[in-house]
């Protein structure tokens, strides 16, 4: 456990010192959402109707941005091999790096989302559910993304390949995430959607590190 936290701490320190990943993801998220009123037109009704979907799609794309570098820098400078030789199991390495990635890119999205919801004229009643779905959903995005990042490691133009590989897998998260907010806004209970999201998280939490570790071992051969 100590080693796990050491690795999370190192990745957070690296991310904070390099500073780019976290700010880029959240800036992209904001800009992406801000573009919609320009494209769709500023009618408040239409914006309020599409707000949940727009925010979720933008969050999805933003979390995809820095995924490519999740394992790439460690792979290129040889750290990944040394991590594989450490007492920490490879699955824990994947989980630690994914957790650090989520803390750096996912959490700022959750914080920024209510502000963007105001911008898109979303009913205040949906804010709570919006934050809740993002809090459950963005870890799933990071976990699924970690599998893709591990699989595309060492591939040429891995970033493009990664998006093609991962975006279809994000669809269930998007459906239940946006669905929960829509349900709350139309006066229904968002509970089933949230439970399904929780189920996805419960499935991804053990499976993604396992699959990612297998892919990393393959990449290091």
């Amino acid at each position: 456990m100590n080693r796990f936290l050491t690795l999370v701490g190192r990745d957070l320190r690296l991310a904070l010192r390099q500073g780019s990943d976290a700010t880029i993801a959240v800036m992209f998220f904001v800009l992406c959402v801000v573009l919609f009123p320009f494209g769709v037109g500023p009618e408040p009704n239409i914006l309020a109707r599409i707000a949940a979907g727009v925010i979720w799609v933008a969050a999805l794309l933003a979390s995809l941005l820095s995924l490519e570098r999740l394992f790439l820098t460690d792979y290129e400078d040889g750290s990944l091999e040394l991590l594989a030789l450490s007492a920490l199991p490879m699955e824990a390495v994947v989980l630690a790096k994914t957790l650090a990635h989520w803390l750096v890119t996912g959490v700022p999205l959750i914080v920024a989302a209510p502000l963007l919801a105001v911008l898109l004229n979303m009913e205040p009643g949906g804010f709570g559910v919006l934050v809740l779905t993002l809090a459950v959903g963005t870890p799933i995005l990071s976990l699924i993304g970690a599998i893709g990042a591990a699989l595309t490691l060492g591939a040429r133009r891995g970033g493009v390949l990664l998006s093609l590989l991962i975006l279809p897998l994000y669809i269930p998260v998007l459906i239940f995430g946006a669905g929960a907010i829509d349900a709350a806004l139309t006066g229904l209970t968002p509970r089933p959607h949230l439970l399904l999201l929780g189920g996805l998280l419960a499935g991804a939490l053990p499976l993604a590190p396992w699959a990612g570790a297998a892919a990393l071992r393959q990449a290091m051969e």
Partner: protein
Amino acid sequence: MAVSFYPLSYWRHAALWYSSGVIDRLPRPQQRHEVPPPMPVFAGTDLTCLRGDRLVFTGLDFRVAPGGALLLLGPNGSGKSSLLRVMAGFLRPWRGTLAWDDLSVAEEPDGHRRRVHYVGHLDAVKPVMTAAENLAFWASLGGAADPMAHALSALERLGVPHIAGVPGRYLSAGQKRRLNLARILAAPAPLWLLDEPTVALDRAAVALLEGIIAEHRAGGGMVVLSTHADIALPGAEELHLDDFTPLSADDEDDEDALPEEDAA
């Protein structure tokens, strides 16, 4: 009837039981205190390595005893790095087995990884972390109680205490290499796999490295090292990788058949 057959079947069962090797696996408490625990031996038999569809080496045997050193020699592309990666467990041998103390490495890969320190071509230095922070991270991952103290003393040992506060991006190639070598001192492991550790090192650093390796071996550690440069490893066994490449196996005159482009 049954009574008269009883002794016969008893002996048959006893014989079967004995030959099945069960007895060999039974604990023998009376011997446990007399014989000291056997020193671990790291050995490979009949190793064959395939990279893509290219055969790198085949039929390779090696054996490293505690305190022993194995020097891998051979021209570029003869499979020195591949062999070290096989030993570290990154690459699975296509054929053949690796054994630590007669226990197959393939059966407990996680246990094997913990025994190994690997120094490859890449120095694993993070540009935004200082040298001491880089080192302390690996020390703490290796289980050191006070990683920063371990890191500083390892840097001291490598003769570069002054780079402790310097960010990785400002380090020279030689300093990065020293930092990488300091990493193997920061947390103990019995088997050191060093892939051309002398690259980018100056004479003084090579001498330091020789001393560190000698100390490690004196403590019962093992070293497998590949190199093109001169490095003094007293009593080291030499393994010429080109003896095991298919090219030289097919040719009559072994060494001369290889192209002479390894100066690059």
